[in-house]
């Protein structure tokens, strides 16, 4: 036993050294009053904001670091710690696990979020309440728009603040297809797919792949003849139409890429299939259409976006603050900064790599210089984007969040697994 004593001693020293490093004290939560913005800014100074967001896109990562990281440091003395997650659900889980373990303060200050993930945290009462309308830049947000004040049908209730807008679109390669050949509805898509076996697929609906879910929901809207009935949850409506939906998708299945035995699991896998000519269409949510993807080198330079005539689901995405966030003041400052007109203008430009649409309503911007910037940026979207008129014409709101899970699990059981 004597022999191990020195080792034990060394171990203890090492371990305690480690915990000293690891336990670098959380900054004491400086107090602030949410109604007094100056006190928020003062409390945020010197804090580090831990922003959990999907990290799969290098260009979005660098946009966040360049545009928000720098501005936070220079203007507010806040350090941005961007925590890339493979799926937003990981961030939600982190907060849920912290609740399980009773950990307060936790690790997460801000999450890029919407839809089912927002619903999870809202239902579990894990979000910091009553702040979104208190941000100074909140006046630029059109809170009367149901697409903003409801997130997948769930009332936002000032628990999250918008970042950007997105709308479902398809991408085609103008070097391969002409606009006249493009399908303009789900019915036409079926004809096209049957004529071109193996050349189309969509993203497997599921957590982390909401674009796939959205493709399927669009089909549900068209089959049932309208989007409006889906904005509130009704089991009977679902039971009535879902068999039709599975029927449609199963009719597509044998003509899909790899005969529908498998599906790309996310947007990027589909982009790669599209870029390598395995399929002829991809899917995007970006205001710039294929623009940002071309910039990133993910799709050919001749790629363009297009929409069907109807049922292209659009929505907003948000940032939310967990109730146990350690640096709430800094998170508030960041959420406010995101709505800054100059940064909103920067976020839609293809060359900056983010490429989603405005979260603010540019009609509410009064500062002429800022307004000019926003209008100017909108003109520079390039010809890889869908025209704003087409986007507006085809826009449909998303369905109630409760349908999300039904569509995803139902699709797995009735389309993916089913051998029909």
């Amino acid at each position, binding site marked *: 036993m004597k022999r*191990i004593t020195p080792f034990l001693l060394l171990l203890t020293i090492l371990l305690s050294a480690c915990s000293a490093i690891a336990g670098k004290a959380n900054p004491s939560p400086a107090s602030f009053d949410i109604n007094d913005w100056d006190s928020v800014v003062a409390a945020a100074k010197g804090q580090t904001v831990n922003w959990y967001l999907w990290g799969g896109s290098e260009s979005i990562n660098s946009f966040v670091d360049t545009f928000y990281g720098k501005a936070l440091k220079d203007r507010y003395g806040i350090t941005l710690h961007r925590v890339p997650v493979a799926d937003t659900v990981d961030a939600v*889980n982190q907060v849920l*696990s912290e609740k399980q373990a009773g950990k307060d303060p936790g690790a997460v200050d801000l999450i890029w979020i919407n839809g*089912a993930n927002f619903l999870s945290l809202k239902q579990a009462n894990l979000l910091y309440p009553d702040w979104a309308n208190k941000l100074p830049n909140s006046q630029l947000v059109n809170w009367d728009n149901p697409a903003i004040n409801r997130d997948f049908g769930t009332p936002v209730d000032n628990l999250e603040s918008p970042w950007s807008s997105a709308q479902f679109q398809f991408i085609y390669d103008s070097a391969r297809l002409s606009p006249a050949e493009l399908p303009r509805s789900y019915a036409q898509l079926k004809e096209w797919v049957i004529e071109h076996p193996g050349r189309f697929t969509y993203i497997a609906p599921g957590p982390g792949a909401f674009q796939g879910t959205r493709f399927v929901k669009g089909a549900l809207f068209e089959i049932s003849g309208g989007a409006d009935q889906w904005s509130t949850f009704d089991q009977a409506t679902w039971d009535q139409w879902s068999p039709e939906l599975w029927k449609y998708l199963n009719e597509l299945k044998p003509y899909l890429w*790899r005969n529908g035995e498998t*599906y790309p699991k996310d947007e990027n896998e589909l982009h790669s*299939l599209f870029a390598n000519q395995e399929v002829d269409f991809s899917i995007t949510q970006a205001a710039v259409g294929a623009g940002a993807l071309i910039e990133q080198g993910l799709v050919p330079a001749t790629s363009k976006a297009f929409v069907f005539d109807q049922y292209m689901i659009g929505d907003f995405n948000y940032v939310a603050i967990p109730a146990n966030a350690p640096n709430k003041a800094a998170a508030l400052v960041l959420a406010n900064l995101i709505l800054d007109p100059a940064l909103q203008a920067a976020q839609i430009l293809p060359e900056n790599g983010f490429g989603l649409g405005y979260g603010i309503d540019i009609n509410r911007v009064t500062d002429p210089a800022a307004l000019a910037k926003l209008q100017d940026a909108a003109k520079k979207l390039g010809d890889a984007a869908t025209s704003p008129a087409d986007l507006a014409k085809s826009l449909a709101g998303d369905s109630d969040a409760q349908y999300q899970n039904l569509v995803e699990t139902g699709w797995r059981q009735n389309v*993916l697994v089913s051998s029909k």
Partner: protein
Amino acid sequence: MAPAILLVGTLFGVSLIYGLAQSLGLLTGTDQRTLSMAAYQNVLSGSEGVGTEFWPSLGFSLWIAGVSTLLSAAGALPVAVWLNHQSGRGRQMDTLALNWNLAFPHLVWAIGLLLFFSQSGLLARLAALLGWIQNPADFPVLVRDRLGMGIIVDYVTKEIPFLALIVLAALRSQPEDYGVVATNLGATPWQRLCYVTLPQILPSLISGSLLVFAFVFSAYEVPAVLGMPYPRMLPVLALDFFANPDLHHRAEGMAISLIIAAVVMVVAAISLRYEKRAGYSQ
């Protein structure tokens, strides 16, 4: 001794206890305060959600682990026997190369296979260059396929070196004389291999193969990268349910993970029996 036992035993033991508690519905952040077998029931016989996927996943996992193990063992034998006949610097280099293969993390290996074997990967491009195929769809599906061939290729190429080195160690620890005696008694090289060499190394090979089986059965990274949305291998299924924001699914994920652990422990126990027969080779 004491610190190691304390550290490993505590961490490992506690992780199992906490895991068990969670699979029984405790500590999962829900309001449940009593033990419940609901998660296991859902997993083993549920009619929706996890229940519909568990058995296909188990079958798929057994298939992948079984085939990978058999092919690795079959591939490792000739490599080891061959290497045993090499000598000098060449042999040292070759042994080092095997070790190097082992040092490649599985994750990186999987990515390499994906970039190489996919329908628009380098191999498909070569086929297109040679005019064998026109479209990516003409190229056979080798990764992310229904049979899990991509996953199997990954494991086989990585486990052959592992098993070869184990068999090599067994070969080297055997006295050369048996082989010489057999040759003197007129055995052909083939007979020598079957009746002398093989029985000597079989216990080590079986023991090592079972470890490979246990590893393949329970590893996450490779099926996560090279797998399909359905069927999924058990570890992928387990983490997916564990990470579900609906806390009720956590217990199910944990239950699957413990089932995996139980299977692995049984396989490891059998492996140990063979290892004893092979002599103390740790």
